[in-house]
């Protein structure tokens, strides 16, 4: 082999994830992501409002088949995501350390992310049994209430805990049959893009999870106001953000779920009640008679 003998590494392009594909942002813009020495690590996409709208279209299209998927299969797919993430542990640890997390903490975060997926995989065919009811109405009717997914959920993933926070918010949404559009951590977006690759390799149908990178300030309004989004989850910001998100969400009576300042590393950060937050209760009546 000619040359000096040191191989020139191939540098990864970090793109967004919409409808099971990895396009660049339609806006053609990028954000230069720097490490602590101000060296450019990557040029990540500066996602636009148009990207978001495209992602919502994909998520809406994916909603019907995904919500029809059996609980057993959704559980297996979440388990498969965990398997794929386990196989790529080193890559995620490296990305986290590249973005300033200590190696020890990075390992902990990746392990916790895998375990969280297993946790929610196991809930897929159980949360309905916890939260459903047969209601003893006094008339001659059979009456029962079950949970159904709310629909398309927009998620502003936490800025800190860029992998575990993302996984902790996406898993309860999709295990319940919703589809989602996620805005990755602005500060540390790399793991979100690599997580999209994990999803892509895990039999998650295209459009079920869509992941954008970009600026909070530019995109939060659209995440909150879009008329075909049924619920919004947000994880950062003070009362001004909370106010602005809910004001815009009111346009189509979105469910607004605040998970600000959660410590995603603890066991208390996982619960079937998080699944329930993006579920609707449906009650069905039928007469009893001949």
């Amino acid at each position: 082999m000619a040359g000096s003998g040191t191989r020139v590494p191939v540098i990864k392009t970090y793109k967004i994830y919409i409808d099971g594909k990895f396009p660049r942002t339609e806006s053609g813009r990028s954000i230069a992501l720097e490490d602590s020495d101000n060296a450019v690590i990557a040029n990540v996409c500066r996602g636009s409002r148009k990207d978001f709208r495209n992602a919502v279209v994909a998520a809406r299209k994916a909603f019907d088949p995904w919500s029809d998927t059996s609980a057993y299969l959704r559980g297996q797919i979440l388990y498969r995501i965990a398997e794929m993430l386990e196989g790529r542990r080193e890559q995620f640890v490296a990305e986290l350390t590249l973005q300033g997390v200590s190696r020890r903490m990075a390992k902990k975060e990746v392990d916790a992310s895998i375990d969280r997926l297993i946790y929610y995989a196991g809930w897929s065919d159980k949360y309905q049994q916890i939260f459903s009811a047969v209601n003893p109405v006094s008339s001659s009717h059979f009456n029962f209430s079950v949970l159904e997914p709310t629909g398309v959920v927009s998620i502003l993933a936490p800025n800190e805990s860029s992998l575990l926070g993302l996984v902790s918010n996406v898993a309860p949404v999709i295990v319940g049959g919703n589809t989602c559009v996620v805005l990755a951590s602005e500060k540390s977006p790399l793991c979100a893009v690599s997580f999209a690759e994990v999803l892509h390799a895990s039999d998650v149908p295209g459009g079920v999870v869509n992941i954008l990178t970009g600026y909070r300030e530019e995109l939060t309004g659209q995440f909150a106001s879009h008329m075909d989004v049924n619920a919004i989850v947000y994880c950062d910001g003070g009362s001004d953000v909370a106010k602005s998100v809910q004001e815009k969400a009111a346009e189509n009576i979105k469910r607004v779920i605040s998970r600000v300042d959660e410590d995603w590393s603890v066991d208390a950060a996982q619960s079937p009640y998080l699944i329930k937050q993006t579920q609707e209760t449906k009650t069905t009546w039928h007469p009893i008679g001949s």
Partner: protein
Amino acid sequence: MSTEPTKLAFNDGWQYAPARESTDHFSIAAQHELFINGEFIAPESGRYFETINPATEEIISSVALASAADVDRAVKAARKAYKGAWSKMSGADRGKYIFRIARILQERAREFATIESMDGGKPIRESRDIDIPLAAAHFFYNAGWADKLEYAFPGRRPKSLGVAGQVIPWNFPLLMAAWKIAPALACGNTVVLKPAETTPLTALKLAEVILEAGLPPGVVNIVTGAGETGAAIVNHPDVDKVAFTGSTEVGRIIQRSLAGTGKKYTLELGGKAANIIFADAAIDQAVEGIVNGIFFNQGHVCCAGSRLFVQESVADEVIRKLKDRMETLIVGDPLDKNTDIGAINSAAQLETIQSYLKIGQEEGAEMYQSSCRLPDRGYWCRPTIFTGASQSNRIVQEEIFGPVLAIQTFRTLEEGLTKANNTPYGLSGGVWTDKGSKIFKMTRKIRAGVIWANTFNKFDPTSPFGGYKESGVGREGGLHGLDAYLKLEV
């Protein structure tokens, strides 16, 4: 043999003599005050408004108009009661007070039913058989939860929220008050409730019941007024939870105004329910279901089956039978036990309904109304259907809140489903078929919170109620309705 199908002719041979509910067994005060801190007190402004009987246009009583200052007094009383007796009381004792309310309501049921029909215009048959017994049942059901809440939320410790501010509509005045107050109290909260300005009387009668039941002062406060009074409750900084039932338009304003406050809220908003009739349905029963779906309570029902979808092959038959059945409906005096459809709740609502009748015809749908005679005074609307309506028509897309049905047809299940779900609302839905698997397919796929299969407009305190999409947030009733009045601690 004639090919003409047999006409349903119920009226031949049936004459109904008037059977008017008596009003001599109770009295209605000429003036009503606010109920704050266990006392009936005059509004700070000294202002009153009139509540009228929509069937006669006569003034029944004048009612205190609560200002922001009055609301503040009510919230302070509720806070004091919360910090004092109510939050320290055991669940079992709290439950006993709520049971008492249920019992007294049952004892005074006829008085409540009659006043409800006088103040709101609904037929006595409905207020007597549905509104009042269901209101009592809501108190009875929720009373039993007061000392059992920890069983409802596995892995969590339920805690009360504090003061609940509640704003209710005019279509089921006492029943809505019960839906709101009973779970709030069972969960250990205190309440400031505002009934609608056109139907305040039964809520104020309920205040008497609450006094009679001996609840500590301030646990329930009832303030009367219109939108401004409601806004003062919603926006009061010391209210921890807001519960609203009403239009989506107002719900949107409330959700916006609560932004950034951290207050918990439930919204029960508008609807435009699809009632879907398949060719294999029991048609005569389905026709009864259509009538009950849209003409119950003059169509002043957020979950009314106001969009009818009929499978094409039976559309002619269904519409003919529906028209025959409509001819038999008696519209008139709400206090007459024969009456099927009472008075429209207010002049303003009648005007809204009439504007939609005009819009529907201008949009090209064909209007049909029954030929019944209407009383000379009062606010009335004949049962009305529109055939040949299309998806984009305003009478199909917008909530009319009156006895007005928009009818469309469909061929395949998928077409019916797509049309049914083509709405920003998602409160309720109906499906009529004799095939079980089709019922489950439809009831799963209709995006709405309450689905009636081979029935319609049924309610029960054990059964959660509430909407998908723009029909609201949260559930009321049943175990699921408790969530709205609690915080769940780990």
